């Protein structure tokens, strides 16, 4: 009998198991656990206060960099391997070209301020280096790397001409303030691209410093920093823009954190093969600050009433828009790029950047773009776009003499100037991917489909509204 004294414990356990197992197996406690996007967000590293480590004093930025490299030995060489430093891509094949080419701010042009060649001191203010004032800049010198622009407190550090520290910066204080890049570090260049707040991108501007959730759900509602998404190892920052990296497949995607079929609605999920997340979740661009949509260089140099948003003598006429409706185009992540020296048809719009992909490209999706149009100078004899020297003593902005501005740059660009110039229409596509709206503000069916829809189905290659004509898998395309 003794040996059975504890048999009731075994009995109790068996009884409980017999009840608990079926309950656990067969009773569902409701909604299946959805994949949590937070699982994919890297934890914020803890901050190390550098104020004691970086006591200074430092006479130059290079000295600060040297001090950084004492501990972060490979940091400079890592940065030097990124386009933040090179401003030029690896050689890549672009459609219709025989040779690999490199593309970047360093050697190519846009239709805003056109090109950095001959204009280095002004443009390289946003370079992660010190002292890029002409073509002879030493890209191999580690101490030329500017650590502070990305890591220092922006209230203690700023850059001046040629990317050197601005006058009056207390380098020791700045060096002591370093940490994980903040929105302000990134924004100081990326929000002000094109020469001022909100000018260039249409989805990046200073409203993202302290956005509410109606500006951007990630930064406003969830408190994201830029680098929470634009993360990377060894200073390789994820993300790219087709104007400077036309053939770089983007490793950054909404689906890195969100399941593509995240929508509760099967009808919406049926869209994700053909429609980028951004298309519905970024219904409009430039939500807070107007962005530049058109720039007419041909009127520059006149003595007209000036207004930074409509006309400046040094730049010409502008059109700014806010809450603009994006242009939509198929895009497979690659782009074609106008290269300096390419022959243009001055009567047609030259696309400096052109997203690749069409309705027959299964990897392409419909994306929202800001399209920036311009009339910019070209060589009327040689029929290629020209890069003027704008800043500086002899630049256009000083003398308002186009001939001089073009001629001065012949040596820098290697392109001969015939002596005759004109203004040709160009356009650039800027993919929209920030200022993301939550589902409550995303596009709805009728925004694109039906009589009042915003899509130009014919332009996208559809025969008609796919709501009634069926999707591209049917092949009823234009």
């Amino acid at each position, binding site marked *: *009998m003794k040996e*059975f*004294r504890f*048999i*009731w414990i075994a*009995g*109790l356990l*068996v*009884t*409980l198991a*017999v*009840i608990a197992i*079926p*309950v656990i197996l*067969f*009773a*569902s*406690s*409701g*909604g299946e656990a959805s994949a949590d996007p937070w699982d994919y967000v890297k934890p914020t590293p803890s901050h190390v206060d550098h104020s004691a480590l970086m006591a200074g004093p430092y006479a130059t930025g290079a000295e600060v960099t040297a001090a950084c490299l004492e501990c972060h030995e490979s940091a400079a060489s890592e940065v030097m391997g990124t386009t933040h430093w090179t401003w030029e891509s690896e050689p890549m094949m672009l459609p219709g070209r025989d040779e690999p080419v490199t593309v970047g701010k360093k050697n190519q042009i846009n239709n805003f301020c056109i090109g950095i060649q001959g204009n280095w001191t002004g443009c390289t203010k946003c370079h992660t280096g010190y002292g890029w004032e002409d073509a002879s800049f030493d890209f191999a010198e580690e101490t030329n790397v500017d650590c502070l622009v990305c890591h220092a407190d922006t209230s203690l550090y700023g850059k001046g001409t040629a990317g050197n520290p601005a006058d009056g910066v207390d380098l020791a204080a700045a060096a002591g303030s370093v940490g994980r890049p903040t929105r302000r570090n990134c924004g100081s260049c990326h929000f002000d691209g094109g020469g001022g707040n909100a000018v260039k991108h249409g989805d990046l501007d200073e409203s993202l410093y302290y956005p509410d959730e109606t500006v951007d759900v990630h930064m406003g509602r969830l408190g994201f920093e830029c680098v929470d998404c634009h993360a990377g190892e060894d200073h390789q920052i994820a993300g790219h823009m087709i104007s400077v990296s036309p053939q770089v497949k983007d490793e950054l995607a909404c689906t890195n954190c969100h399941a593509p079929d995240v929508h*509760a*609605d099967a*009808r919406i999920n049926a869209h994700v093969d053909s429609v980028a997340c951004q298309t519905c979740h970024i219904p409009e661009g430039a939500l807070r600050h107007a962005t530049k949509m058109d720039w007419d260089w041909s009127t520059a140099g006149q003595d007209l009433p000036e207004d930074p948003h409509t006309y400046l003598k040094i730049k010409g006429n502008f059109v700014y828009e806010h809450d603009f409706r994006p242009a939509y185009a198929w895009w497979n992540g690659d782009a074609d790029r106008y290269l300096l020296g390419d022959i243009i048809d001055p009567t047609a719009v030259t696309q400096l950047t052109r997203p690749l992909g069409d309705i027959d490209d299964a990897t392409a999706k419909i994306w929202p773009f800001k399209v920036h149009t311009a009339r910019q100078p070209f060589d009327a004899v040689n029929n290629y776009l020209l890069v003027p020297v704008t800043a500086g003593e002899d630049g256009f902005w000083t003398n308002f003499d186009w001939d001089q501005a073009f001629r001065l740059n012949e040596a820098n660009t290697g392109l001969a100037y015939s002596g005759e110039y004109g203004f040709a229409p160009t356009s650039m596509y800027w993919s929209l991917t920030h200022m993301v709206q939550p*589902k*409550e*503000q995303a596009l*709805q*069916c*009728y925004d694109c*489909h*039906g009589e*009042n829809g915003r899509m130009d*189905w*014919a332009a996208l290659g559809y*025969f*008609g*509204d796919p*709501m*009634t*004509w*069926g999707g591209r898998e049917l092949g009823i395309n*234009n």
Partner: protein
Amino acid sequence: MARFTTNGRAGLAGAGRIIKPVVVIGLLVAVVFFLFGRTIAQEGEPAATPAPSPIHPVFPLLDADGANVLASGVAVSTMTTCGGCHDTAFIAANNFHADVGLETYGQPGSLSGGRPWDTGAGLFGKWNPILYRYLSPEADATVDLTTPEWVQLFGERHAGGGPAVTSRGGGPLVDSGLAVDTTIVDPATGEARPWDWAASGTADLNCFVCHLPGADNEARVAALAAGRFADATTATLAGTGIVEQAGGNAGAWVYNPAAFDEAGNLLPEYITVGDPTSANCGNCHGVVHNEETPLTLDELTVADWNTLTTGQIMSPQRLNASGLNLQDKSALGRSWDIHMERVLECTSCHYSLNNPVYYRETSGKQPEHLTFDPRRMDLGEYIYRPLHQFAKGQSAQGTLAPGFDETIRRCESCHSIDNSHNWLPYKDRHTAAMACETCHTPRLYAPALESIDWTVLTAAGEPVRAYRGMEGDTLGAATLITGYEPVLLPRTNGDGTTTLAPFNLISSWYWIYGEEERPVPLRDLQAAFFAGDGYAPEIVAAFDADGDGELAAAELLITTETQRDAVSGRLSAAGLDSPRIRAEVQPWGINHNTARGEWATRECRDCHGGESRLAQSITLSDRTPGGELPALYEGGPVSWPGGIEATEGGGLAFVPSTAEAGLYVLGHNAARIVDILGALMVVGVSLGVLIHGGLRVLAARKRAKTAGEESGDPAATQQVYMYDVYERFWHWLQTAAILLLLFTGLIIHKPDLFGIFSFSYVVQVHNILALLLVLNAGLSLFYHLASGEIRQFIPRPRGFFDEAFSQALYYLRGIFRDEPHPVEKSRDRKLNPLQQMTYVMVLNVLLPAQIITGALMWGAQRWPEAAAALGGLPWLGPLHALVAWTFAAFIILHVYLTTTGPTPTAGIKAMMLGWEEMEITNDELRMTNEEAPAMDSA
């Protein structure tokens, strides 16, 4: 397929498949070209993408005589203009939008389910308290509305044709000999004066008001109101550039020659006709907003009919993107109507019944082996004679065209419930009890009429109206719109099922008079209230409570006999016989403004709880004029479980009852008597046990005292192997299952008391436990049968009553005296006769009853007929609860009785360990521990 008569209703209703409308439109165009040989200048290949140009061929505008209006200069008639290609006579004849009740026009009281004075089934003849004006029959001495005035006033919501063309006696209105067709009452004098139909013309069926995008309804209504009926169609073209009004707003319409080509056809850029857009329907049916601009609302009028009566607004826009001052607006990310959001138009569901794209046979007519019948009407035939009887549901108030009731596709015609709602337990049970709208239109976000009191008139000559869903009683840009939750009432559907569905209720109070009841004409009511520029002195005297000589809004309410008499006296004086107050509550069905699942009512507790959404009351009014309780409208498919209750402040509310609706909503409904009985039983048994146990303790103490140290030796005991392992296992498994079933059952029964538990999870756990219990009982039964142990439960006839009596006596007396148990417990005879009786009851009555009622409640999902055969959930639920209470009482008693062995814990220990401590009273039963295992094999 279907046959049509040119003057009767078509005998068809449809089944079919949706084909992409654009394809169809394209085909239709082709057919039109083909049939009528019309050509549009076509150069080269047609464009790859259909250009936004009209798909409809160009056409001339013709007058009623068929002459081009450019030549004749008179009003357009769409009967001739559109009749060039389409059979407009057929269209006008088979058209409930034109007929609006003319066909069923009859004697007052002839409308089934209608009021005693109703003469028709639709706008023409069916009175309602919102519009108030009454279309008088020919025989009436006091005339309210005649046909011409009806067209002037109600033409606002009438597409023309029907009674605006044809006399209620038959034949054209121009030739009518009826006084009510050919006169109009002068509002100033109350005298009839002749109406000159030749001058006014008739309001022919107006194709443009529905088929012309941007049709100018305001201009049309103005022409009708002005009595220029023939101009109504022409006026609808205002704003197209085809016509303009000479001499400002009142002048005749003149044609713009620039809008026509040399052949006299309209230039395509001036006119586009096509399928009615939702905005076209919205001209008469309610607020439709299909634009990007934020939706705004000004005053709701009868032209906003469905919005006024229910608060429904048809728009794809998100609520928080609208321009309305909505409560908690920022959180309202849903659209006004999911179907509009998904780019459906009104015509997507309310299609022409012979449209070959949508056509389907009446449900029940189509052979079961066919899900689609490809034999369709030829598109050309359809274009020629498109049936203008549209698929419709069955509305609570609609009595027009009952032959077409429920021809519309229902939610489940397009939506699969099988492939959705997987989160919802008891899916079929829920959908059998509730219409889709019940959950998917949980709330309306626009104001709706709540009550209308015609027993008094405001200084503006208006009734006192109250709205629900907004603050205050005037709608303006700053009005806070709160929205409202509709009341849920049982609706009998076309297929005979009854489901709970959402409704707005509009209560009305109004004066009627006469032996043959008639509503008091507005002009008589106004004459009763007003004299000169203000209220009549008698009225002021009766209503002016504060004596300031003015009638404030709050004073305009009949609460006393004096007030009632003051009004009725003045009405009588005007020649109206015995004026009295009539009151009614009308239900207005809500089938639109559907929301996606995430916005639907989906929390179990919303309905399964004390405060169930299904039984949520709705305010009828904040007043009860004359103390008259309104009658609940019985003429429709709606029934009224529950009743009207007075609210604080003199108002009324309707309080629905799910029990009266024949529903037993778990967690909400409970048979009170069962719970009282059950609780009494449990409390009674507990008290009995406490008293009995207390007495035993007292008796034991007393014995101990008297016995003293006299005998330190308690009765000799020995250990007996009483319960083998399996017996103990099934017992304890059953114990746990029953206790947990009682607990989970209690949560399901009274979820409000156990807020932390998920209702649906507990229901699942309850079901799983029940299955375990049944399996355990079954295995145990098999064990007892196979081992023969079942005999232990079967009372033996011999000496049964003697033993039972002595056992009872023992519990009553012997137990207190420490007498030996009269029936010795042994390995072979564990149960005494009382136990045997109890277990016969528990195992043969209670347990099966609980299993059967429980299984049927669970099976209400799978085998609803089986549950219904036993009275359905309203019987099963209370029975299941009653048995559960009994089980609870049994368990208390059972546990207590285990303490009546040699020692209080002997019984429980035996059930845990198998060995029971037994008093040694019988030599035969003496056993040693070593002998015990031998018993197992015995």
